[in-house]
């Protein structure tokens, strides 16, 4: 389709695509949410599996790449501190608080575990873990809170986002572990849960939006049969779901860790790309309901 979804003169007289957070520098938000959530997911599992490198990478991905994208996108980054002013209603305020605290606790945790201090880190692990969870959660909530966009305005969206975040985090950790040569079995077990769950959530989500409203259904149509269907079928379905699922099935069949590393790494990259594409589709396909 060469024709844009709406012509300038059709603005809000036809279902009108959301642009702000996905066109031009708006793409930074798409990336920010991806990095933050995958980073947080990575930290989460790194804490569980006590992987310092993973922790450090997760922290870096979430804060520097995620938070950084967010800051770069901001019109007045020097005033970013103001963003914590309205946690009562604003999920960005909450998110900024979450990510700040995640950053602080994460840093403390990293420093302490690097120093190898002789302390019980469990409380800190729990606190940091909780913030990882909140950071991975809030991005989806930020979107789902937008009543104006039926594609976002559903409880399933945060579920998808957090699942994707954790799955992505787990995959990155899996990759790191593979490269470091440490054991991967228990991580893979997580993936065995998260990936099928994600694979189940995606159609569930799309179907529920499809029947929610006319505009929602148009958004879903864009993903399944419209301008975004190449992204969806190649990126999400093929790269993000089919390939990882095949590899997963193989490793279930052949036993944990049986697949060659290269193939697993390949599947991990595919999975991450699939996640990114899924997020892109969700950002891009969202439509506002026309005013006429």
């Amino acid at each position: 389709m060469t024709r844009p979804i709406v012509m300038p003169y059709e603005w809000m007289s036809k279902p009108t695509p959301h642009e702000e957070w996905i066109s031009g520098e708006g793409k930074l938000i798409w990336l920010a949410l991806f990095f933050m959530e995958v980073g947080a997911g990575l930290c989460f599992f790194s804490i569980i599996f006590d992987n310092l490198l993973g922790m450090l990478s997760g922290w870096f991905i979430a804060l520097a790449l995620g938070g950084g994208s967010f800051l770069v996108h901001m019109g007045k980054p020097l005033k970013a501190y103001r963003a914590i002013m309205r946690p009562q209603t604003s999920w960005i305020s909450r998110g900024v608080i979450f990510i700040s605290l995640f950053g602080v606790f994460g840093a403390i945790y990293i420093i302490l575990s690097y120093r190898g201090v002789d302390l019980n880190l469990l409380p800190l692990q729990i606190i940091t873990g909780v913030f990882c969870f909140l950071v991975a959660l809030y991005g989806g909530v930020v979107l789902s809170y937008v009543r104006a966009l039926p594609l976002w305005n559903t409880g399933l969206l945060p579920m998808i986002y957090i699942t994707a975040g954790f799955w992505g985090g787990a995959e990155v950790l899996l990759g790191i572990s593979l490269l470091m040569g440490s054991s991967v079995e228990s991580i893979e077990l997580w993936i065995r849960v998260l990936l099928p769950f994600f694979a189940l959530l995606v159609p569930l989500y799309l179907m529920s939006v499809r029947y929610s409203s006319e505009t929602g259904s148009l958004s879903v149509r864009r993903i399944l049969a419209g301008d975004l269907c190449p992204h969806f079928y190649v990126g999400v379905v093929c790269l993000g779901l089919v390939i990882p699922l095949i590899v997963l099935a193989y490793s279930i069949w052949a036993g944990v860790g049986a697949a060659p590393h290269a193939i697993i790494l390949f599947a991990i990259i595919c999975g991450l790309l699939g996640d990114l594409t899924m997020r892109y589709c969700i950002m891009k396909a969202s439509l506002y309901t026309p005013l006429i």
Partner: protein
Amino acid sequence: MEQKPFEIIEDKWVPTTCGMCYGMCAIRVRVVNGVPIEVEGNPESVMAGSNGGICGKAHAAIQMVYDPYRVNYPLRRTNPKKGIGEDPKWKRISWEEAIDEIVERLGKFHEKHPEEVGFMSSPPTGADPACLFATLLGRKFGGTMLMPGPTQCANASHEPAGMNHCSWSVTPDFRYANYAIFFGAGKGISSGHSMVMLAGLRADATARGLKTVAFDPVCHQQGGKSTEWIPVLPGTDLAVALSMANVLVNELGIYDREYLERKTNAPYLVKNDGTYVRDERGEPTLWNIDENKPQPWDRPNLGNTSLEGEYEAFGEKCRPAFSFIKEHLKQYTPEWAEPISTVPATTIRRIAKEYGENARIGSTIEIDGVILPYRPVSCAIFRGGSGHSNGFHTFMAVDLLNHLVGNCEVPGGCIGWVTRSFGYPQTGMPAFGPAPSKEGFLTSSSWHRGLPATWPHPEPKLNTGVPTVASVFTLSTAEPVLVSEERENLFSKLGITSRMKALMMEGANPLMNTAGHQAMAEFLGGLEFIVHYQLYCNETSDAFADIVLPDASTLETLDILQSELYHFHYPMGMLPMEYHLRQPVVQPLHERRPIREFVLDLAERLGILPQLNEALNSYPVSTGCNPPLDPEKKYTWEEICDAFLTSKFGSEHDLEWFKDHGFIRWKKRPEEPYWKPFINARSCIYMEFLIDQEKMTKAILEPVGIELDWTQYTPLISYFDAASYKVKDTEFDLIAFSYRDVLFGGTHSQGLPWLRECAKMSPHSEMFCINIDTAKNRGIQEGDMICVENERGKKVKGKVHLVEGIHPQCVASTSHAGKWSDSQPLGKGKAPFFTALLESNFDNWCPVGLNPETSARVKLYKAEDTK
């Protein structure tokens, strides 16, 4: 962020008038530190919309002041080659140089052949049509008047509206109206005179229940905003109006007998050859039922006159004109009109019935103690409906619907622009008004081109010494032959040896706005010398002008003449009367000079200043200047304005007073807007004059072998196909037409950034429109690039917008769009250049008023380079 302190030295509102279209609305402009920053309607004046509202265009006037693409200095063409696409290679020259050259080159003509110099001006602008420049300077120079843009203006509406309403155009009297029908007129919505004033009146009326019906091929502005949209094929309004008249007269028997008897020529006795039965003096007669004998129309006590029946008068068998009309209308049944217009017969009947019933024939209303007939229904038509080769009859047919219910110039009915004024009470000025004339018809006290009257029409005469046939086609307000492909053929056959050699243009963009624009290009290309007084270099100047002079725009100009010309620019109906000053809110920037001052200088240099002063003294006709200007003296334009103002409104209301107050107001009496009952004169519904007109025109044209469709010279308002329906090639299956965009006035505003930005929200502004079904059949999609081609193979490309709200047999775009000049790059190439589809020749002219056909039979297909 710290803001540098900004000191406001001056912050004032200046009252003046808008010139972004010819509405001349009252505005005020906020000027801060010498910079005009805001335009709004003048809330104190009624010559704006509701509570001082204005339209979108008006705001952009301040952008026009600072538009970097304006002409700021006199320019001379240095590329001797002329033509579309030639770079003129403008070179800045001084005013002295420019005037010297103009005086030298015009002086040559002035001595021997002044008629070889054309004077042209431009209606849709603040430049003030044909006023000081053409009508006064041009006439005193002895030049030939020329209005090529409006060869397809509402040409076909002006002459008959003048004849029947003493006005250039007609509109519903919204204040008292309950039901109004539009046959292709944007009144109070998008276009036409006093657009914004009418918008306010119309909105109030709509809010209290006015029903509006728009016969219009497109459902956008008038169609979209009326209570009911009835799609009609362009150029077929004539069929609809005639069949409605038939329903009223022959099916419902609804007509205003008394009005027809007293206020029209319906009772005039007509012989079987179509001419009147005249008395010894040659005046028409009518039949007195009480005395059972014929009597002249002007006998003091007319008694009961007959509208029907057969009589014998002065030895001739005869019938009242109305009985001919009544019988003649019988053929025009709604069933007959349906296939022509595509309006269902049931709809025509219903609308006719609603119209007739709402007319409340016989009812009266008391306004300010005066009892007047009350007819809250009306039919209005203007450029859209009448811009066809059957335009004369179309206007007359629609107007017949008015006369049948007796609604002309009475409350709620169909009224013209301010035609009668008793003047400002203290001075009795300006006073003007309609009066009875020959054959009992109305005539106005002033008319366009400085003509004194709307009736009788000048007799067709051939004058071989001037380069125009305007004297032959006297029912045309703008003779198109001169600039058309027919010129050489017709001129040589008629033995007209004179040719136009030079042209003085004020505003205007004839190359873009004239049907047959290639012939226009040839005409312009054949001239020796063209001076274009302009705000912008446009397509016409770039291709053909030798000298371009920089005018001051409305907001930089002092003027009173916009309050004088044909009395448009006064408040309508029972709104109080106002006379406005236009004044500069900012002094002309750069070397721009208001054309008024230039005209005085030029007149002086050409030695015609005394004549010009004298002409001003009696301009327009009855209201001029008193004490008169001294013909020998050179006045400044300020002095002339001051003299005009004090002569009209007393010495205390001088220019300074007007600069402070903007305008003067006084109350009208009901007899002014609703004058018809008080003037013993009639409108024409039986066009007997066409019989003589035909004879005289034929006598000139037939001997040289020029055939017109003489059948249109019939006294009985009749149906004729518009030219677009004479094309038989079925491949050309669509009718293309244009309509005005509320966002733009003429071509020049097309380059103003604010308006362009708004146009992006409006698909109508930049694209062709066709019906979704029409598109489907051709595999065309929204936004596709299409090509529209007329039967001569002229092609216009543009993007297409698909809508439900357009007649499926039509393709439309806005008029005045599609600029191509680099001189106004922001307006360049933004929309289809519709006018290229129109042809200007005898096949496409209304044989009566020479109104060019403004729709075209076309085919439409996807252009190769889609998107």
